[in-house]
């Protein structure tokens, strides 16, 4: 067994929270740059250019890309030959989040109870997903998730004989309903298969995949391409003010499912889709 101290995980989580909030992902930035070149509407171009300028300023001034610095979603891939030492893993992760948000001047956006709604004032707790995998490494991915877009996410349990068209219509309807609120151009993570919960988690994980990458299965990749094209023809455009750029990227992650069902989850994310990862 390889020993890994939870303090190392705490420090890594803290670093990744800062990096994710200050430095826009290169793949996202590249997609926005490509959109500027493709965009014909003057206002849409100006908005996209301001997003690029914002990313430059955020990185150089160590300012949050967006004031909604999110609730922190931590994805852990824990090698089964790792032995964690030095205390509680969950506490260590939350200490890392708290330290980053307090020292990095990031916004505390978490309330401790959904009805009482008192801010916890240190942006904890994080939402933590842990997967046990082969090996003796720990891969940590931190993704601060804003709620303008999270609020627009949806899941639908289709019947197994649903057509591609029915599935596409559902996903396109989610984008239309999201409208201006999700800060378009959006990025969509789609989870298909598994169960109600698994589809949602796949959708969330799909947002971590590089923008522009595609599902390895040809029929899924085709669905991705068709959806991107149809969504961009909606004309919503940057901030909903019209243009060719409604979506920057869409990725499907799939999993086997039950003979009676076909869960489809759509996790909506804004143009400031943020994440950072490191393996220790």
């Amino acid at each position, binding site marked *: 067994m390889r020993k890994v101290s939870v303090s190392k995980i705490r420090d890594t989580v803290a670093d990744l929270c800062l990096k994710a909030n200050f430095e826009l992902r290169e793949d996202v930035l590249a997609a926005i740059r490509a959109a500027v070149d493709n965009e014909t509407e003057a206002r849409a171009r100006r908005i996209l250019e301001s997003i690029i300028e*914002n990313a430059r300023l955020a990185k150089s001034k160590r300012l949050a*890309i967006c004031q909604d610095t999110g609730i922190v979603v931590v994805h852990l891939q824990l090698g089964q030959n790792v032995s964690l030492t030095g205390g509680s893993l969950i506490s260590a992760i939350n200490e890392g989040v708290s330290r980053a948000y307090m020292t990095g001047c990031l916004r505390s956006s978490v309330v401790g109870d959904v009805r009482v709604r008192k801010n916890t004032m240190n942006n904890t707790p994080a939402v933590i997903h842990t997967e046990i995998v082969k090996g003796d490494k720990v891969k940590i991915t931190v993704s601060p998730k804003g709620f303008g877009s999270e609020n627009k996410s949806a899941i639908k349990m289709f019947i197994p004989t649903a057509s591609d068209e029915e599935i596409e219509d559902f996903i396109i309807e989610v984008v239309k309903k999201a409208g*201006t*609120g999700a800060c378009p151009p959006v990025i969509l993570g789609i989870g298909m298969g598994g169960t109600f919960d698994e589809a949602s988690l796949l959708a969330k994980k799909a947002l971590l995949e590089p923008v522009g990458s595609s599902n390895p299965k040809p029929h899924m990749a085709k669905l991705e391409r068709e959806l991107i094209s149809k969504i961009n023809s909606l004309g919503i455009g940057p901030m909903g003010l019209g243009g060719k750029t409604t979506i920057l990227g869409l990725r499907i992650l799939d999993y086997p499912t039950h003979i009676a069902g076909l869960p489809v989850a759509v996790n909506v994310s804004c143009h400031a889709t943020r994440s950072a990862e490191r393996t220790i």
Partner: protein
Amino acid sequence: MIKITAPLEKNVIKKLKVGDEVLLSGVIFTARDAAHKRLSDLIKKGGRLPINLKEAVIYYCGPTPPPPGLPIGSCGPTTSSRMDRFTPELIKLGISAMIGKGDRSEEVRKAIKNNKCVYFLATGGIGALLATKVKSASVVLFKDLGTEAIHRLEVKDFPLIVGIDSQGRDIYAKAKWKSE
């Protein structure tokens, strides 16, 4: 580009047309979900509000804390429609303008038209850039709400688009994806 100064005079608001791009300078006040809820509860109780909202410009924003040497952190707009349920009563109290992102309810549009107010759009997700337009910031009410406290901001050339003008014309009214 049209330059305007807050507090906004009625004759200035009247001249603004939907789709106009403007640079706003002067004093604005942040308020988002929790502050709206508190103000609304106070109004329902019938007491005097601890803040004078007459002619105020309300910015739907919860900023990040200021890094050393800066008045404010990242400070872009949040989704305006969540405030729709409170907006007509604030308009009745005399606010002159709102800044946020996204479309508004029909009820809000009518209240804007009837009271000759204006709704501005700021671009979402560019909070670092918008922070460079803020000259000073201080918390004036509901400090316990943290980022959701009401902040007084002094802004210079804050870039906005007129989303709903004083005649009730809505920039999103003709968006084909909405009507379908």
